[in-house]
């Protein structure tokens, strides 16, 4: 008997599983965000941001956590989220896929973001105003493949300095997947060199997670624009005239330090698509985006 019951339950379940996504409510404003450090308790921290947005905008706002820039872009493109806190590069990629999408605001720090090149002491590379020739032939790790500060900009400057692809400059090129991991892997000597988001480095230094006898900054890139809020072009049709501008205002007016600490940014300042033209040009130049 129990077998029959078991089979029956299974048979009943199947169609239910397929239609589940359809049952989700459509008129909720959903956003996603991947902070450049501390990805723990995302739901809890960004749930508060969602509450703030919900209060200010007068619509239900939900947050969904994602694991990678690619997942954030997919969600943005599929209209699963309408608003996203992207890195410079992922924002460019996402807006290319969604016609009408706009950059709304960037973090105060993102107007002049930079990347640190770091090295294990045993690599014997001294800090300098230029990228030292001595980095050639060493092992090197980027952060995540889709990261602006951990991949795009460092690769750009490497190509500029040595007129060669990273794989030809270094004896081994890796992708640690994350800035904290880049630091951990260079500190452990797994890689001799790495490129890391400056803000993450400064914070980990402050928290005492970095042993400066083992790992140090050897070069700093020029500044470039990075993280920004991007919104889909069709939100005004779905949530009412002027909704996009309302979202921009609400983001710029976010002053609660607890909310800002989740990103972590000092404040948000206005931004638009053209601010990211250099990022797009760089991505095209190194072949991360097709012409």
């Amino acid at each position, binding site marked *: 008997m129990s077998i029959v019951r078991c089979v029956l339950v299974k048979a009943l379940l199947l169609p239910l599983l397929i239609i589940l*996504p359809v049952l989700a409510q459509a008129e909720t404003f959903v956003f996603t965000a991947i902070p450049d450090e501390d990805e723990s308790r995302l739901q809890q921290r960004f749930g508060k941001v969602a509450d703030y947005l919900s209060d200010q905008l007068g619509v239900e706002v939900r947050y969904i956590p994602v694991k990678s820039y690619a997942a954030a872009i997919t969600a943005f493109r599929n*209209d699963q989220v309408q608003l996203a806190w992207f890195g410079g590069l992922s924002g460019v990629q996402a807006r290319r896929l969604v016609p009408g999408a706009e950059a709304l605001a960037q973090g105060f720090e993102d107007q002049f973001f930079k990347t640190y090149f770091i090295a294990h002491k045993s690599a014997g590379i001294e800090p300098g105003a230029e990228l030292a020739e001595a980095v050639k032939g060493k092992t090197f*790790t980027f952060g995540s493949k*889709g990261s602006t500060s951990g991949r795009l900009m460092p690769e750009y400057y490497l190509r500029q300095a040595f007129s060669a692809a990273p794989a030809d400059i270094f004896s081994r090129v890796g992708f640690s997947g994350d800035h904290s991991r880049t630091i951990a892997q260079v500190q452990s000597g*797994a890689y001799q060199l790495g490129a890391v988001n400056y803000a993450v480095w400064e914070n980990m230094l402050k928290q005492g997670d970095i042993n400066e006898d083992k790992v140090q900054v050897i070069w700093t890139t020029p500044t470039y624009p990075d993280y920004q809020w991007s919104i889909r072009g069709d939100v005004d049709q779905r949530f009412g005239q002027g909704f996009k501008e309302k979202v921009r205002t609400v983001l710029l007016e976010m002053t609660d330090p607890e909310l800002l600490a989740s990103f972590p940014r000092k404040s948000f300042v206005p931004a638009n698509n053209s601010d990211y033209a250099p990022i797009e040009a760089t991505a095209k130049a190194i072949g991360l985006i097709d012409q």
Partner: protein
Amino acid sequence: MTFITQSFRCLAGKVSRFLPHLPFRENSSARRLNGVCLLMVGAALLALFGADIEIYAVDPWQELGKIGWGLLLPGWSDLPALLQALGYTVAFALLAVAVAAPLGLLLAMVFHWRPIRLLCAALRSVHELFWGLIFMQIFGLSATTGLLAILVPFTGVFGKVFAEIFEQQATQPAQTLPPAATGLKRTAYTLLPQSWSALLSYTRYRFECALRSSAILGFIGLPTLGFHLETAFKQGQYSEAGALLWAFLLLIASLRWWLRARLIPLYLIAAVWLLPETIGFSGGGSLWQFVSVDIWPSALRAGDGSGLLDWLTMMFSEQVWPGLVQTLLLTQIAVVLTGVLVLLTYPLASRALVGPVMRWPGRLLLLVLRSTPEMVLVYVLLLLLGPSGLPVVLALALHNGGLIAFLVANASDAEHKSRITRADDPQGLKRYAYVETPRRFPAMLAFLFYRWEVILRESAIMGILGIATLGFYIDSAFEEIRYDRAFLLIVVTALLNIVVDSVSRRLRRQALPDTAQ
């Protein structure tokens, strides 16, 4: 544990039946066995030359110390979140198996049709994580994505293994049926009752695999244990990582107490209720866009023949070929190392070799090895050995070695229980070398051949961590939103898997004619 013992018996049914006669078999069978082993080891030694397995001088102790403390002193501040992640992990696994097993059964009934065999091979040739990445493009971050990512490849596996179980059944009962009886009737009245217990125990074993898959899907964003595990490792919060690993170990170790046939309907209802709510996805998605546009190179869509050729040449020389070679080489080394590891570790957990009490530490070791996600092992080994294919090879060998050694030790225990001991039975090393290992060896080899394709899939997947196997290029393609590249690479990976699967079947038949159909 009994269900794994049973599944061992069902998988290696014929092996165990012929085991007691092994010493009396003609010489040629042993020679064939040796020949195939030699071939495998030789290929692995050759692979050592081409594989990327450098060791780097590293200074890992600060980081490893932190990991060690985290494992010893696990801590988790947010209990509801942990329970929720555990719940999701079980819910995905349970529902996926509940759908995949009946589907697999249906496929097994028509497995003699070549298209069905190909379908099953194709379904299981793509790793759960890659299925997950594909379905995420179509169904967003949703319960549907998680369920399909497990149940699609599992359906392929169930179809194949159930068909193999059917083939092992005696044909006499079927001959008593009227000749006009249809295939369905034959299955329902003879094959199903004959093989029911084997089918059930294999399904239970696959459920354990599904739990692992479900946990690992968290790495790409589904809210299972892997989600928090990935974050904890990324952020260096090792006591949280420790808590998650221990929770997962307990979940697997306690299966025998909570996985009861009578409770399954209840669990299924609970699982449906537990499934994470899908936020913001209205169901339309971009299925058509994905199938008709995204996965095809733009040159093909534009009808630009020479552009397509350029694209294919670039893909083949820069990604497909190097990725393929590394994947194959690392797999070959990992398979042989897995075998070595099994030979070294199974005695630690076997009653006949270390005794009824001392086998428990060994069993715990094997439990830890087979339950710790390979990604975590690779991460730790990467810190220890530096970045190359070596951590991947070791992690795959440790994980799969732990799994097979566990099955082998169980088989040894099962036989030990049923045999009358004699006073002059050899003990210790002699017993290991002259009694247990020769008896276990054919079954161990059969498992190794079964796991070959699994190891191949996993070494491809490890590319996600930055080692240049096929998975590295697939992951890059997804990160760069170049689905045309991802699609080509996944198809290549799948084809490679199908080829290796058929080679391993042929070798198994060569070495162990009694286990082959």
